[in-house]
């Protein structure tokens, strides 16, 4: 199936015309996202090396990029393959699966009849921009992201931060759609509960 979007076709044209400046634009736009994806699997230093290696591979292979997926999905796949290869070499087999210990942070907050026992508290932020201006809260969100199980963090990264479609996330992570949705829900409720706690106590 040809999934080339007008944006991807324009990119392919630009790459043919002016490879280096166009590629530099991709680095500028995607580097931080790719680093965050790699950090779902690897420690900071290793993640940076893996992303550098992924950019080298991408630069070599970009002439063969046909635009059947978005460039972002293509780059993410290269990074994940590189990260998994490093884990395998180190004998740390990557696992992106559902685990019974990854709980739903909202699970205990309902009565038996399904109504709220512990309803959500009101936040002071009225827009995403207002939330992003709260430096301490940003640190808390970063900390919570780091503490999430690799599977949840990876799905949240790809869906909420990178904006990938569910179909692409399933393909890239080799997971079923239902598993991806459960993992995303758990990650979001975990983060939601932390923001609530921050709202009430000023701490993570």
């Amino acid at each position, binding site marked *: 199936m040809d999934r080339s979007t007008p944006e991807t076709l324009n990119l392919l044209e630009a790459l043919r015309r002016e490879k*280096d400046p166009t*590629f*530099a634009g991709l*680095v*500028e*736009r995607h*580097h*931080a*996202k790719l680093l*965050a994806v790699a950090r779902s699997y690897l420690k900071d230093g290793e993640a940076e090396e893996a992303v*550098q*290696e992924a*950019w*080298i591979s*991408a*630069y*070599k292979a970009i002439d063969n990029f046909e635009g059947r997926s978005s460039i972002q999905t293509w780059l993410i796949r290269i990074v994940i393959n590189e990260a998994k290869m490093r884990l395998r070499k180190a004998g740390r087999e990557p696992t992106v699966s559902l685990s019974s210990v990854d709980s739903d942070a*909202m699970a205990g907050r*309902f009565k038996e*009849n*399904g*109504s*709220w026992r512990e*309803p*959500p508290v*009101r*936040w002071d*932020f*009225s*827009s*995403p921009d207002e*939330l*992003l201006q709260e430096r301490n809260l940003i640190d808390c969100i970063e900390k919570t992201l780091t503490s999430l199980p690799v599977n949840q963090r990876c799905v*949240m990264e790809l869906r*909420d*931060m*990178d*904006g990938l479609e*569910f179909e692409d996330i399933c393909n890239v992570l080799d997971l079923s759609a239902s598993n991806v*949705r459960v993992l*995303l*829900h758990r990650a*979001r*409720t975990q*983060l*939601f509960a932390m*923001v609530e706690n921050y709202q009430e106590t000023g701490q993570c």
Partner: protein
Amino acid sequence: MLNCERIVADADRLLADELGAWERLRVRAHLLMCHHCRRYVRQLRLLVGALAGWHGKANPEQVKKIMDIARRGG
């Protein structure tokens, strides 16, 4: 009628605009009556909106470094 626990479970699909017409109607009917669930959905939408702008662009030094490495091939 849907209960609050079910609304929280369905909130992700609501945000992604993936509910069918009938489900969406049932969720909206619940939200009209339940301010706790309205608050949950509103704040979840806000949080997800904040995450969408989480990663900024790489700075010019980082771009130059990566481009140098990529051109050299390692």
